[in-house]
């Protein structure tokens, strides 16, 4: 093993040698720099390897054999090894990345870079305060040097401001160290920490305060961080990577080392400062338009989060390292990657990242880094966040958890908004000059390599953390692997991938179907078999369809893992995966960028509610099986229920949190809409099912929570149906209709009786079938007509008869008119209602029922009936692959209509387990409940016979009917002019809107718009603190120090 000292020595030596070289020998100098950094990296790596493979105790090193300040006291442990490896790697990669810049600037710049890396490594390794100060000084000076060497003219100012602030910090630190040395007589950190009494009072306390506040200030806490952001914005992105990934990590490690000096009292301070920084930085990042400044805010925020975690070390116990390191390396890898990526992009606006679209791999790296930052599975941050939530909730620190989750949500907001811009917007500069391949992108192997390294590191760390988590590595889960395989296979033509996908889904179902109970089997069938049927429509898309299959399969993987999950962690991981996959899917739509954003935000919000709920339920227990929810006791149980229900409600788009759905479903691609509507929504219902199965109904302040759900379900049904009536866009109409249908299903579940659940199951099956069918059908029509506005269509029945049949069957089924399957749902609904004690929500439900007729008729009339338009006269039927699944659905609907028992009977029997009372009786073809009876086959036959008889009679008496064309109508003796003026379609239900008045105003939309406006305005307001003036920044710092001191006094 090479001594850790060589890390420092190599850097120093190389820097010294660089000074000896002649200015012209830049190539050699650069080689030397790389060699030194490479050597340092190798040393760290060997240490990491050693610690990881053998149970080696930490090694203490005293350079001159004497205690500090006369020599350097270093320690090499697992943490140090890992962090120095990180720092050195970042340094090496940055040096590589900076090749052109360094060669141009010459050996002095290389020396400064080496010194900076050395200082950071020293900061990590050192165990004594004085050298901490020395390395800090070195770091400050070299950092300033690096900044000043940057090409940006603003960097000069930024570097100067940085120097001012870091000198203030150094002074504080030095004074603190002097006092502390005076009081304790040692400079060793551990030595000081062992004498807490000395540092608790008088000068000692001030000393401790000064030391800690200086270190914390070096972490750029809010609001004393204006200067830092100027650096991020103006410095070379490679430096940005070093500051964010390496400096941040080093300083936070230093804080972590030193914090014991202050004793337990300092932990809340660290937490408070950290969480405030996290929240406000993310808030401030919201209105940013400069990518590097945004990254800067995010970095500051992330370090704040780690600081908050450091402050919680007392409760985190063994998982402390796992969590802190997880967050730290997440930030480091992602930030380094993002800064490097930003260096390849010439423009600074967020939309400029759209040039990444030319390089799918770069885009993949981008999205990977974003997911790593937000802490989505399967990356380290996800595991860390789960453990953090678990432990915090176990200690009852829910407020902190809430703040962390809120901050993460805001962070996800601006990060995914950025991603949306990159995917969907046109880069601003694109207007000028001809577009060339690679325009706006500066690439080269030396730039690509570090980014690739970060990418590999991100996935590698994900794997590592999965292994360390002890909860089963997500990256080893078969469904996820299958989905990720499509990333590798993305070069294949779409039809091959489609076949693979269908094969995978059906194959997995066939392999596993016996493992599910009847309820889960229904969901599995919808997710897997249903997904395959929808995927048939994807054969329609030609070409390679980059990105579609990984996203879709990610969603399906999440769905499958959801129903296979047995414990809370698996459930939550699956939930996040499916959310992520569906987000990418939705984002693929042409105009779906804002809607996809609102989808991911609501979904993540919901997911965090679920996380909090599970954490609360677990009470710190390492494993929480889903059945374990049943054992949660009062007074916790209702809160767990509320949190989980809230999370699931965002997925079922219940009223209030429904506003993401219409846009997301409507703007998605033709074959994606049925996936996200017919399939994805069921995930929320599955969640409810799990929740209600295990927890039953709960009371909060005397309010029956299922009763609240009942109201929410009924109101969702009403609001969804009502809003659907007034849509002009066919897919939006269907989307709102989904809200209503999910409302019915939720209502059924919340009834908490046998038939209610059966009704919900019926709705789940039916909704999957007819909503998929309708979305495909409408999508096919939209594809042919080039519009989704219903009033622009009309009279398509003769040209697209199969699509018409699908819609016809679909609307008969939705409206519940016998003899199709929707009636079964209604029949069970009535019986379930009669079985329950609720009264008033029924009124809402009954009101919502007939309203469905309104929008359904509108859908079929304005699209297929009425007047055909000029430009649509030559339209063909929708493509075969889009029609095929529709016809399958038609067949399924008819079969389910005649023999509902095929499925329902098993579910009915299974539900006896939960509700022994009130099941159905199946005698022959008759289905009867306690109240009534129903014979689907008889109904079908009777209606069929009457219909056929009358039809035959009409055919006979009307055999000479003359077929006429569309303008052969009576028109008050006039002749119709154009189809546009003869087709009654726009604002179809004007009198209805007039009659209902206020009921039709979109209150929820306004509420959420108000919230986002408020957040943005708050961010804007706080940003005014940052004037860009160095003096102001110094004042901020002092004010921060004083404020923390006063708070400390108070506490």
């Amino acid at each position, binding site marked *: 093993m090479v001594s850790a000292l060589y890390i420092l020595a190599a850097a120093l030596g190389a820097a010294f040698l660089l000074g000896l070289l002649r200015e012209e020998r830049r190539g050699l100098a650069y080689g030397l720099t790389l060699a030194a950094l490479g050597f340092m990296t190798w040393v760290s790596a060997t240490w990491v390897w050693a610690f990881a493979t053998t149970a080696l105790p930490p090694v203490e090193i005293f350079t001159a054999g004497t205690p500090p300040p006369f020599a350097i006291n270093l320690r090499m442990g697992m943490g140090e090894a890992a962090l120095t490896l990180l720092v050195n790697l970042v340094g090496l990669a940055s040096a590589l990345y900076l090749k052109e810049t360094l060669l141009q600037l010459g050996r002095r710049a290389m020396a400064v870079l080496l010194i900076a890396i050395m200082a950071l490594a020293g900061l990590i390794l050192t165990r004594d305060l004085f050298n901490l100060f020395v390395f800090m000084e070195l770091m400050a000076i070299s950092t300033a040097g690096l900044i000043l060497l940057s090409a940006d003219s603003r960097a000069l100012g930024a570097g100067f401001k940085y120097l001012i602030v870091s000198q203030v910090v150094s002074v504080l630190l030095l004074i603190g160290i002097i006092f502390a040395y005076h009081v304790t007589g040692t400079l060793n950190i551990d030595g000081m920490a062992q004498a807490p009494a000395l540092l608790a009072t008088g000068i000692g306390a001030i000393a401790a305060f000064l030391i800690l506040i200086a270190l914390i200030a070096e972490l750029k806490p809010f609001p004393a961080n204006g200067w830092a952001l100027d650096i991020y914005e103006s410095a070379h992105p490679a430096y940005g990577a070093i500051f964010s990934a390496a400096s941040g990590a080093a300083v936070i490690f230093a804080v972590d080392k030193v914090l014991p000096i202050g004793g337990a009292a300092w932990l809340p301070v660290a937490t408070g400062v950290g969480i405030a920084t996290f929240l406000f930085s993310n808030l401030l990042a919201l209105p940013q338009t400069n990518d590097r400044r945004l990254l800067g805010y995010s970095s500051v925020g992330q370090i704040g989060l780690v600081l908050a975690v450091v402050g919680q070390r007392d409760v985190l116990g063994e998982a402390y390292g796992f969590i802190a390191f997880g967050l730290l390396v997440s930030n480091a890898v992602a930030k380094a990657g993002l800064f490097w990526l930003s260096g390849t992009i010439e423009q600074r606006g967020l939309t400029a990242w759209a040039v990444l679209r030319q390089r799918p791999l770069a885009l993949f790296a981008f999205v990977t880094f974003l997911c790593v930052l937000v802490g989505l599975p399967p990356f380290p941050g996800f595991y860390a966040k789960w453990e953090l939530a678990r432990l915090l909730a176990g200690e009852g620190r829910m407020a902190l958890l809430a703040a962390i989750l809120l901050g993460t949500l805001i962070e996800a907001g601006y990060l995914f908004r950025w991603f949306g811009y990159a995917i969907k917007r046109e880069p601003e500069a694109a207007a000028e000059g001809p577009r060339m391949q690679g325009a706006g992108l500066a690439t080269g192997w030396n730039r690509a390599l570090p980014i690739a390294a970060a990418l590999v590191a991100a996935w590698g760390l994900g794997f590592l953390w999965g292994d360390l988590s002890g909860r089963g590595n997500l990256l080893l889960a078969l469904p996820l692997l299958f989905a990720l395989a499509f990333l590798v296979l993305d070069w294949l033509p779409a039809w091959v991938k489609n076949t693979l996908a269908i094969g995978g889904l059906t194959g997995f179902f066939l392999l596993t179907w016996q493992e599910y109970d009847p309820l889960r089997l229904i969901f599995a069938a919808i997710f897997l078999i249903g997904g395959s049927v929808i995927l048939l429509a994807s054969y329609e898309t030609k070409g390679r369809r980059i990105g579609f299959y990984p996203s879709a399969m990610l969603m399906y993987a999440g769905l499958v893992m959801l129903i296979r999950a047995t414990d809370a962690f698996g459930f939550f991981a699956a939930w996040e995966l499916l959310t992520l996959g569906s987000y990418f899917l939705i984002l693929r739509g042409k105009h779906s960028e804002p809607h996809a954003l609102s989808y991911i935000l609501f979904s993540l919000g919901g997911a965090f509610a679920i996380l909090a709920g599970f954490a609360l339920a677990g009470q710190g227990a390492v494993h929480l099986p889903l059945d374990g929810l049943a054992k949660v006791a009062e007074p916790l149980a209702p809160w767990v229920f509320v949190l989980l229900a809230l999370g699931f409600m965002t997925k079922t788009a219940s009223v209030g949190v429904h506003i993401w759905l219409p846009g997301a479903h409507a703007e998605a691609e033709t074959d994606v809409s049925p996936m996200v509507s017919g399939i994805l929504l069921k995930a929320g219902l599955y969640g409810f099912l799990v929740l209600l199965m295990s927890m039953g109904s709960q009371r909060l302040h005397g309010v029956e929570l299922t009763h609240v759900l009942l109201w929410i379900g009924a109101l969702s049904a009403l609001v969804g149906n009502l809003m659907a009536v007034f849509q002009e866009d066919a897919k939006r109409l269907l989307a709102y209709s989904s809200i209503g249908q999910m409302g019915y299903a939720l209502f059924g579940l919340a009834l908490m009786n046998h038939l209610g659940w059966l009704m919900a199951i019926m709705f789940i099956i039916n909704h999957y079938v007819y909503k998929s069918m309708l979305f495909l059908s409408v999508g096919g029509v939209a594809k*042919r*007509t*080039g*519009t989704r506005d219903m009033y622009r269509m009309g009279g398509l029945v003769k040209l697209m008869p199969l699509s018409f049949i699908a819609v016809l069957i679909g609307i008969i089924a939705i409206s519940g008119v016998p003899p199709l399957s929707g009636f079964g749902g209604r029949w069970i609904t009535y019986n379930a209602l009669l079985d329950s004690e609720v009264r008033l929500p029924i009124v809402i439900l009954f009101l919502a029922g007939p309203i469905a007729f309104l929008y359904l008729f509108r859908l079929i009339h304005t699209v297929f009936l009425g007047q055909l338009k*000029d*430009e*649509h*006269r*030559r*339209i063909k039927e929708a493509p075969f692959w889009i029609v095929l699944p529709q016809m399958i659905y038609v067949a399924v609907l008819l079969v389910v209509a005649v023999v509902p028992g095929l499925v329902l009977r098993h579910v009915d029997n299974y539900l006896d387990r939960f509700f022994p009372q009130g099941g159905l009786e199946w005698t022959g073809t008759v289905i009867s409940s306690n109240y009534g009876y129903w014979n689907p086959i008889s109904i079908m036959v009777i209606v069929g016979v009457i219909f056929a008889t009358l039809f035959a009679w009409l055919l006979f008496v009307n055999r*000479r009917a*003359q*077929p*006429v*064309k*569309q*303008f*052969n109508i*009576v028109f008050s*003796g*006039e*002749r*119709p*002019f*154009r*189809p546009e003026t003869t087709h009654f379609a726009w604002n179809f239900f004007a009198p209805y809107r007039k009659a209902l008045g206020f009921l039709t105003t979109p209150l929820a939309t306004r509420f959420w718009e108000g919230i986002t406006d408020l957040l943005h305005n708050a961010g804007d307001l706080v940003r005014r603190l940052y004037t860009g003036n160095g003096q102001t920044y110094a004042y901020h710092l002092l004010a921060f120090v004083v404020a923390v001191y006063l708070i400390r006094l108070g506490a």
Partner: protein
Amino acid sequence: MKVELESRIVEGPEVVGVEPALDLQGKALPAVQPGAYSRTVTLMPRAELERRMVKGPDGVEFEVEPLRDYYCEAGPTVMPAAYLKIVEDLFNWARSRSIWILGFGTGCGAIEMRPLMTPRFDAYRFGIQWRPTPRQANLFVISGYLSVKTLKRAIRCYEQMQNPKYVVGLGSCTINGGMYWDSYNTIKRLDDYLPVDVYIAGCMPRPEALLQGFEDLKKLIRAGKAEGANQYAERFDWYKANQKQIIHDWDMPDYNW
């Protein structure tokens, strides 16, 4: 059956009034023509009926010819009576007992129809009622003078009624122009344009006369003699020629289904 809608250009200047016109007292008006009309009026085909190029959603352009694409081009055919005489007799009885009048007042006579609905005359008891759409009506009462513009609408409505259908000319104007005999804008003989079953003379005929006229129509129907619709189909070309002779801007298909 194609509709000719090429523009017809009337040569101008056209000077009318070579013979001195008489004023009411019979004195000759001055022969001078200080402001003789000298303008050329061009009849343009209706824009909405012109052929037009349309671009489909797939970007392919194609031609739309409204008269062919939007209207049924078939002509009327003679519809045979029921195969069995007894059935046709039953139908004729029912037709005579169920006369549905199209609610379309073409002239001032329309006001004379209204009293028929009132308690004093109560035409409903004879099986007569009014329908608002030609599809369901089978009696078209031309109530008084028929201007050329209205004639166009009347033809459309008549053709949209179903066989068998009947026409009653109400008032002298439908017979020979009546007091509008010298009008520049009303037709003088209704039966040149539509097959008339019954005329009810008078200016205006009283409601009693109308009821009597309907009774006569019923007798015709019962006797199977009210075959106006088939007559129209048989002599379709003759009727069309008459109609087109006075309707100069024929802007609809030849037969309005």
